């Protein structure tokens, strides 16, 4: 539970619900949430089973007689999670090219010169030199930075991981590079996820909670105005975008429940 969930003001704000006329916006559709969920599960398994190799001798031997079994399953799990992650990556690539939502995602995610300007202005805002933050579109420079890093990191980790898996085919020099890059990239990825992504979605003080977006795919109107003002304005000016991004506007969503009581089954809710 995040600190936002404990905040009575925020809870009261959240509990207003659709009956008070508050709109909910679709941030992640079912496919995107599933991709995120699989990626997140694989990432944790890969990080835990990967860094186990670097455990100090004393800790490695603390498993006692089970050490060998632990090491065996570590290797199996690491490979399974790696294959799933590569498969999700390939699916995501096809999703970007062959689905409407994917193409919208790709276009919205492409880095633009405006992102650099946004970052500089946002830093000025953080430092108190500007009164208002820049108005972000669907994906801010923070998310684009993270997304590009994720794509690059996944390709590097997959390639070096596959080299290490088929070690006997390659020269030792190639394997030395693969080992070094795989380890360093893993450290970078884990630190980046903790400092950039988890901090961003869970620890930053904000108006309301977005910690359940990865399950429900929704954010409320206040959050939308606060975090993605440019996108909010675009949606409100364009009925076609309202049909896509406002929860309940699409006839398929009419029966959708309020997102206030979030359950794991919400993953299956279609937007």
């Amino acid at each position, binding site marked *: 539970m995040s600190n936002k969930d404990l905040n009575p003001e925020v809870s009261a704000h959240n509990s207003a619900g659709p009956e008070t006329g508050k709109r909910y916006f679709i941030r992640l559709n079912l496919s995107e949430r599933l991709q995120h969920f699989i990626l997140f599960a694989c990432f944790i398994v890969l990080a835990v089973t990967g860094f186990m190799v670097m455990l100090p001798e004393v800790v490695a031997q603390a498993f006692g007689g089970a050490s060998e079994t632990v090491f065996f399953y570590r290797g199996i799990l690491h490979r399974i999670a790696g294959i799933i992650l590569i498969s999700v990556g390939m699916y995501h690539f096809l999703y970007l090219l062959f689905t409407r939502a994917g193409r919208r995602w790709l276009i919205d995610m492409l880095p633009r010169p405006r992102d650099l300007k946004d970052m500089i202005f946002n830093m000025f805002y953080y430092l*108190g030199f500007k009164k208002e933050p820049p108005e972000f579109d669907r994906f801010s420079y923070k998310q684009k930075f993270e997304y590009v890093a994720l794509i690059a990191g996944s390709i590097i980790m997959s390639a070096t991981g596959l080299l290490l898996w088929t070690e*006997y085919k390659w020269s030792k*020099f190639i*394997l030395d590079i693969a080992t070094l890059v795989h380890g360093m990239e893993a450290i*970078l990825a884990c630190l980046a996820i903790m400092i950039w992504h988890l901090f961003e979605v869970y620890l930053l003080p904000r108006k309301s909670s977005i910690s359940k977006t990865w399950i429900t795919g929704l954010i409320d109107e206040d959050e939308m105005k606060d975090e993605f003002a440019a996108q909010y304005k675009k949606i409100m000016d364009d009925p076609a975008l309202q049909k896509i991004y406002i929860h309940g506007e699409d006839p398929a969503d009419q029966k959708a429940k309020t997102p206030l009581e979030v359950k794991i089954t919400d993953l299956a809710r279609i937007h």
Partner: protein
Amino acid sequence: MRFKSLMLIKPYCLAAILVILYVGNAFSQSDAIPDTENCLLCHRYPSMGRFDKKGIKRIFYINDKKFANSVHGNLRCKSCHVGLDEIPHTDIKKVDCSTKCHVKEPSTNKEFSHINMIEKYQASVHGKGNKAKPISFPEDLPTCKDCHNNSMYIPFSGMWGKSEALSNETLGRCFGCHPEKQWAKKFYSHFTQRMRRRRSPVEIIVLCTRCHEDSEKMARHGLETVDTYKDTFHWAQVKFGVENAPDCISCHAPVGYTTHDIRPRTDAISPINPANRVKTCSNQGGLQTCHPGATAGFAGGRVHAYGVKAQMVAGKEIADTENLDMSLVRKRAESDISAQEAFYYTILEYIRLFYKVLIGGTIGFMCLHQFLAYRSGRRKHGKTG
């Protein structure tokens, strides 16, 4: 009344104690060889020992039952401890494992000694050299007792069973034809002792690194320490206790070689000579077929991560210290590390540096950004966000 009952019980108690003593004594003596030299007259006392001239505690106590169950349990004391005719022992000589120990070697029916192994060992990289081929600092090189003690036979367990029951059942079948049980047990133990590795991979690493991680000792012989082995995936398996994990002898004395005949990389018959590497890495015919499809490119590389020698050849300055004279290492580095390996090392170092800068820069920027974001968020939304 009470006294009378005690009187009645007493003979039974006495008889029981005598029976227990007799049986216990008989059982304990069953495996022990007869002490024909009467050494145990003194050496049976656990407190027997002294401090030598160096102040090291020496224990001279012999547990006869344990000794009988050891690999040398069928030998008499004087088979190895030659001399010892005077008491107190002033004519003591160091044990020489090449001594003929009055045991017939069954395949040749000649008197047995470890001379075959010692000759091989002397020709190996660990040999002390001779007049024709002198070696500097011979005192650094390991002797028999640095690696071996009089180890105990332990019950064999393996794919057919995990307990002493396996030995009992197998020996039961042996006794049918070989009525001399003590002989059969020794023979069985001698054989089964060699069906498994005596030391686990971790124990091997500990044993070898006692010398090979001693930088001063290594530098005296122009060698670098092997601590870079612990940067490899081989070590990861060893530290997790994986059976048959690749330790020192897996590559330096693989199947078909003996640990007594470890040879340098430049020796044509060495398993780590470039010409023999594919066979060594694939370890065909061994318990663990490590890299069955190993190619020459894979097997041709350096298994230990690059160490001091590669750094030297790549131009990094490694300074001598008060106790560490690196001149011989520096000299040997030029012949041990090729220009190509030095180039590989340099490339790897640049990649490492690139990642250090990337991680430092990226994470540093992220920390600063998130700190400012947090401070700004608190200003706008209050402490709890």
